[in-house]
């Protein structure tokens, strides 16, 4: 009985075990696998991250077929934060693709804006449109690939035709 009272008095004045999360920041340890950040200046557009991503949360859209200009798009609300893209990135040591040790803010009143999150997230303002915009982008990215492949094929045909005419002339 006495032991019990001592124990309860101790508990009254001891620190709480829980963290008051929404009011206090929740501490994340070093090396926490958080948001994927991208730096376009260092990117060599090898598409390795797009191919390895398990849920397909990274997409490159070809916006200009003639110059093969690509835009990086990332969906932090589809990402599973495994870090496979950072492992596979050839320029990861220089900081092209890095994993921050902070969480992405949940999709609440507004969409998180950051230049390092890719193009799509900076274009959307309404959080309800994220899912729709992403599914549209998936289709667009696939189509742009096909168009680019066709353009390349035509270029090759042209070159071949030119070479043949040169041969005939000479």
């Amino acid at each position, binding site marked *: 009985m006495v032991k019990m009272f001592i124990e309860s008095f101790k508990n009254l004045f001891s620190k709480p*075990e829980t963290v008051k999360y929404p009011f206090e920041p929740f501490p994340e*340890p*070093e*090396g*926490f*696998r958080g948001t994927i950040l991208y730096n376009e200046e260092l990117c060599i557009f090898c598409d390795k991250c797009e191919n*390895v991503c*398990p849920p397909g949360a990274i997409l490159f859209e070809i916006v200009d077929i003639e110059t093969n200009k690509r835009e990086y798009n990332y969906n932090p609300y589809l990402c*599973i*934060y*495994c*870090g*496979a893209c950072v*492992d596979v990135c050839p320029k990861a040591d220089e900081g092209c693709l890095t994993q921050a*040790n902070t969480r992405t803010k949940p999709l609440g009143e507004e969409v998180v804006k950051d230049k390092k999150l890719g193009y799509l997230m900076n274009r959307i303002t309404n959080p309800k449109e994220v899912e729709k915009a992403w599914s549209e982008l998936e289709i667009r990215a696939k189509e742009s690939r096909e168009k680019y492949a066709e353009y390349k094929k035509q270029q090759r045909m042209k070159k071949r035709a030119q070479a043949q005419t040169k041969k005939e002339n000479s």
Partner: protein
Amino acid sequence: MGNKIVVPFGSQHIALPEPVSFLFDTKNEIITNVKVDVGYVHRGIEKAAITKFEFTNVSYLLTRICGFCSITHAGGYHHGIEKLLDVEAPKRAEYIRLIITELDRIHSHLLANAHVAEVAGYENLFMQGVKDREIVMDLLENITGNRIQYDIYTIGGVRRDISKETAEYIKKQLLKLKDKVLKVYDFYDTDYTFGLKTKGISYISLDDAKKYNVVGPIARASGLATDARAEFDYLPYDEVGFEIQTRTEGDVWARNIVRQMEVIHSIDLILRAIDNLPEGDIKVKYKGRPKGETFVRVEAPRGECFYYLKGNGTKVLERVRVRVPTYSNIPILKELFVGEKYSDAQPIVLSFDPCMSCTAR
């Protein structure tokens, strides 16, 4: 005698974290017959693994079968694919794998025990158990970068190293945890009211355990010494001095005690592994694509987990088959209910620590 009444238990039930349905035919509180349905969370993961994913990143899918056994599925898959590709992970990587696997087992067992205490009407013990579990979760977050999905396995090694400071931190925290676990172990062992609710409930004899092919802590609580960690050589368990923990009582109480003993033993294993952590690389490179078939048996927190892999020399595997421990424990669970009171149904189910996400996949 009263009339026959059918009482549904699930598919959504306050005591269960996952959907599973039991339909009990009862007569005056005594259960006379039971129907089980375990297929509520089927997601078609085995099919997705052989169609949408390449063999290099299919493990990200397989680890997401279940939160508690995520490291088991990663282990099962990677040990199999390493056999097919003929790679051997370095010693240091093996030790890091062992440490994470055992930490995962500790947090799973602590929560399972706490759940049994909760449904037996001992809420305070539940809080104590979950409070201790948080130490392990923090350790896992520190080493791997995530609380549940560790993703530390990779083909030919591990993705992250354990630094010296982290090793010291793990040791310090584990010694702290051991004191707390021993204190809670004392409660499970000696508490009178907890014993009333758990001792002698749902007894499994050694013969029954053998006959129904029971696995995991449930088998070990009946005196059946079966453990994939001792039987198969997939991680250096014999180097750190692994011993099988058994009891002979075979009831709900004994299952809890076996789990608690395993937690203490796992802490010892990790401490020994950290003291003897070999120097060297954590990753080796591999070549080629998987061809041929193989199987692996690894010990999940709930028992023996079986993996079958078949590759045909392409990037995508031909077959991935997973058989999880809960599936082998369902037949005996069905037998056990008959003759018990309905009020004991919750501790019986939770003493089996069922994992439905694994079972239905």
